[in-house]
């Protein structure tokens, strides 16, 4: 009972935050709503017994990535967004896409409601179990992902340092 209440409370916060993210006109309010969504998701993970994932969700997404978002908004001093009366792309692709997505999710949920419940703690949640899975069973995907991230970092460095190289060439 308590579990269900908490689940619903976090779910309401997450959905309300997501709606607010779209409805707000000021970028910083949208960013803050996104933080609320992330925090609520962390709460849901915690309810599933995934304490490590919940903590990482808060540290990485709510604490680091969103700080950078807010930083960029502050740095660019982004103002209130213009409001258009719905673009044609949104009407032609967005609404049907949303409907199809909603139907798919509803279908998946209805199909799997066969009472296959998993007790808390039945799935790997503590850090040690996750580490065992990551470094034994899923070592190859893990390493491939890390190489992918390394490539992304190198790309970011190259992109960030490009203007200077161009400048130097001009000076010569």
């Amino acid at each position: 009972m308590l579990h269900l209440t908490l689940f619903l409370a976090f779910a309401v916060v997450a959905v309300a935050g997501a709606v607010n993210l779209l409805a707000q006109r000021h970028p910083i309010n949208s960013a803050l709503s996104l933080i609320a969504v992330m925090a609520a998701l962390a709460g849901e993970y915690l309810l599933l017994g995934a304490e490590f994932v919940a903590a990482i969700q808060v540290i990485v997404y709510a604490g680091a990535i969103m700080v950078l978002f807010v930083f960029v908004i502050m740095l660019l001093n982004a103002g209130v967004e213009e409001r258009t009366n719905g673009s044609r792309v949104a009407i032609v692709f967005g609404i049907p896409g949303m409907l199809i997505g909603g139907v798919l999710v509803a279908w998946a949920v209805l199909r799997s409601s066969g009472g296959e419940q998993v007790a808390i703690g039945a799935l790997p949640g503590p850090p040690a179990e996750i580490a065992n899975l990551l470094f034994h069973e899923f070592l190859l995907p893990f390493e491939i992902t890390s190489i992918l991230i390394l490539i992304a970092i190198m790309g970011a460095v190259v992109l960030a340092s490009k203007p200077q190289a161009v400048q130097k060439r001009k000076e010569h």
Partner: protein
Amino acid sequence: MPIWLFIVVSVIKSIILLFILLTAVAYSVWLERKVVGHMQNRWGPTRVGPFGLLQPAADGLKFLFKEDLTPPHVYKPLYIAAPMIAVVFALTSISVIPFGNSVTIGGYSIPFQVTDVNTGLLLILGVTSIGVYGVALAGWSSNNKYSLLGGLRASAQMVSYEISLGLSLVGVLIMAGSFSLRQIVDAQAGHFWGFIPRWNIFHGQIIGFFCYLIAAYAETNRVPFDLPEAETELVAGYHTEYSAMKFAMFFMAEYANMITVACLATLLFLGGWRGPVFGPPILQAILPVFWFFVKVFCFMFVYIWVRGTLPRFRYDQLMAFGWKFLLPLAILNLIGTAVAVAW
């Protein structure tokens, strides 16, 4: 333990802890003024009470009765929310800190800790990383160039140094094999050659401690990393437009964060509540908590000492130091520890 008793005990512990924490915050302000005063050949506060000991109470009253100004040009919702975010998350992170072993009252073993979470350390890191928003949003919502610069500096600085902070702790985690603060302290029990305590700082984590110390100073915006509020260039940085209790909340958040950092350093590197324990049972119950507070006090004293000694970094120096020196050092420490433990 039945659920109602658990709730009652938790509420009582939370209230006591909050009381202790706020008192500690007030008196670390007093300590800072006193110590820095003596370092500069002044007396510090002396008028209110003996040795100025009632100065925190006088300051608190002053903050309460001051006019709470809200400048007309601020973005009000966030302007009001920012100090609350700062102080709430600063006070929350103390909840998983264990102050000592458990005592047995009426058959139930009650630990000196509000709650023992499996991932206690991660929880503290998460909560403190959310606390950045208080400073950043205060700077932005004040709608003032000095405040904005302070907020920008704070967010950039905290994101940069958080990485070194996190990495400097991984060495300790590898040695303890747990995220639980209680187990990390338990892993530091015992002595080398009978007299040197097996604290992590004497157990190969001296570089980790060094990295943690520096990164923690930067995370709490303290001298020599107090660029977000550098008064010589930014008036007062992110809290320029704040007055009365709202300003006091930022002040409290800063000192509460310092205390959390000191507690964490004590737990992770200085052996937590471990120390000589002797005498009758009542003394044996109290002494660990006493040792814990002594270590936290020493750490706080070093904090103030550094403030009285070092000048402020320049901003490019701060960033270069964080990324080009501290981060590689923390990574080297991590690799070294991992190799040593595996070997």
